[in-house]
């Protein structure tokens, strides 16, 4: 199988969120960057498992500058065979998806994986955009994927439940929790990753239709109002009269 896994670089889940340059840019000072967890833990690992079971190759792809190479090397250390970085500083999901689609369009990948969303923009758009640009079916929020030859059986999260679908032929999938279990790269993997190919290719021209013009932090939360544990009637009164939520 020929598998493509799209990986993104995001601030660590515990990173301090602050902005700079007149609140137009994320302040990366002192921020630790990681591979987007949904891309790493679920999408990449499930792709590796499929390759281990049926043979093939796993390529990881990232749209970004050379600052992203550490994160890409981690993907190689976990087990991807090769990596591609499209050398650009993307400003929108549309730009990223169009770049990846332009790379993938003549390569006949069996499955293109993304994470269900990135933990910075929480957009959940790139997978769906790639699918449209490649004219392929798309399954979002996949929690299970089993292959039977070229036929895939996929479970996905829907509101209040699960949907199970079958696709024969190539498709794009966004990975949710449950699709696979996180793998920690071992020393051998880290050593081998240094010798695996990381091909840097130039971007294609894409218009940026929707870009961030300003960031704002939410107003600081008022400090908690403590209620006597023996007076739950008071809590109910506050929820009704003050907070007006019941």
């Amino acid at each position, binding site marked *: 199988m020929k598998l493509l896994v799209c990986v993104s670089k995001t601030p660590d*889940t515990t990173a301090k*969120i602050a902005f700079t340059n007149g609140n137009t840019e994320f302040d990366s000072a002192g921020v630790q960057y990681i591979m987007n967890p*949904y891309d790493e833990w679920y999408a990449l690992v499930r792709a590796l498992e499929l390759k281990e079971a049926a043979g093939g190759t796993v390529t990881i792809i990232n749209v970004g500058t050379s600052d992203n190479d550490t994160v890409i090397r981690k993907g190689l250390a976990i087990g991807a065979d090769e990596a591609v970085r499209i050398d650009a500083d993307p400003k*929108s999901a*549309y730009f990223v*998806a*169009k770049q990846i689609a332009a790379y993938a369009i003549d390569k006949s990948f069996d499955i293109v994986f993304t994470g269900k969303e990135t*933990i*910075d923009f*929480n957009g*959940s*758009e790139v997978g*769906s955009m790639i*699918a*449209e640009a490649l004219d392929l*079916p*798309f*399954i*979002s*929020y996949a*929690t299970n994927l089993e292959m039977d030859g070229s036929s895939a*059986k996929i479970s*996905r999260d*829907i*509101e*209040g*439940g*699960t*949907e*199970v*679908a*079958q*696709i024969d032929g190539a498709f794009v999938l966004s990975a949710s*929790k*449950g699709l696979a279990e996180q793998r920690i790269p071992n020393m051998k993997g880290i050593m081998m990753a240094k010798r695996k190919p990381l091909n840097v290719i130039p971007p294609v021209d894409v218009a*940026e*239709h*929707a*870009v*961030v*013009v*300003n*960031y*704002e932090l*939410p107003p600081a*939360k008022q400090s*908690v*109002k*403590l*209620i006597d*544990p023996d007076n*739950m*009637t008071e*809590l*109910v*009164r506050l*929820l009704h009269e003050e*907070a007006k*939520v*019941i």
Partner: protein
Amino acid sequence: MVLVIAEHQKGKFKKATFETITYGAKTAELLNTTCTALVLGQAEGIDNLGTYGASKVMQVNSDHLTSFDSQVYAATIANAAKELGAKVVVINHSTTGKSLLGRLAVRLEAGSVSGVNSLPSLDEGFKVNKNVFSGKAVATFEIKSDVKVLSLMGNSIPPEEMGAAVGVEALNVEVPTPKVKVLEVKTVDGIVPLPEAELVVSAGRGMKDPGNWGIIDELAGVLGATTACSRPVADAGWRPHHEHVGQTGVAILPNLYIAAGISGAIQHLAGVNRSKVIVVINKDPEAPFFKAADYGVVGDLFEVVPKLTEAIKAFKAS
């Protein structure tokens, strides 16, 4: 014209769809144009959609729309948008909407913003806000393209009965043949799914044992709330996976979130910090969750939760 996709599940419209129609109607007012609701496939209560602000309701019927294939749905919506000359397309920020938004952006060569939480501002270009960094910040996006596609975060604006019921018009557009074969749809009936819930009661490791959940179910029962849980208890198999709220689970924004026996790790907060009001019950006064809470009760949840249930019963009876 603003085109709103009136999403339904198993032929039923839910509150999130009414919110999206109201959002579309208000956006249309700002743009000095009209709002049309589009229904794909068969559903109950289509006549009613005008009530929430759509001045026109249209329906595409096809055997190809009986189960969900994002490729088919997106192509149909894009065909309708082109046919009707839509400048803004709005869909629910649901699992369905999320799998359509990107496709529509590509098909319509449109700028898209997913999970918008406020009406557009038109002072300088077309700008919308959405939560980013798992609710830790708000970003303002400017959309520069002629056609714009938005998904509306649930519970961001209330549905308003701002219009009148209108008749349904059939719309004939091309609907492609599905490639995705849906084998099974499993939903839990009778409870409001977490992403749509207004009231949520959640519990974590402080419950000590899965056999102790009766008090949580009872509190949720008297409130009419949906139950949720933290990651450790879902991972341990104490509670079903679909109840897990947090960074890797479901992100929710109810009006009221009651958390019992959850310490409030940053990954948990990332999924719940958009709740309007947070009540934290924990015996550890140092639990980090108290910093994110509006109301806190420092005490043993096995005593506090039943007392709260009784107090709510008394309130409901009064």
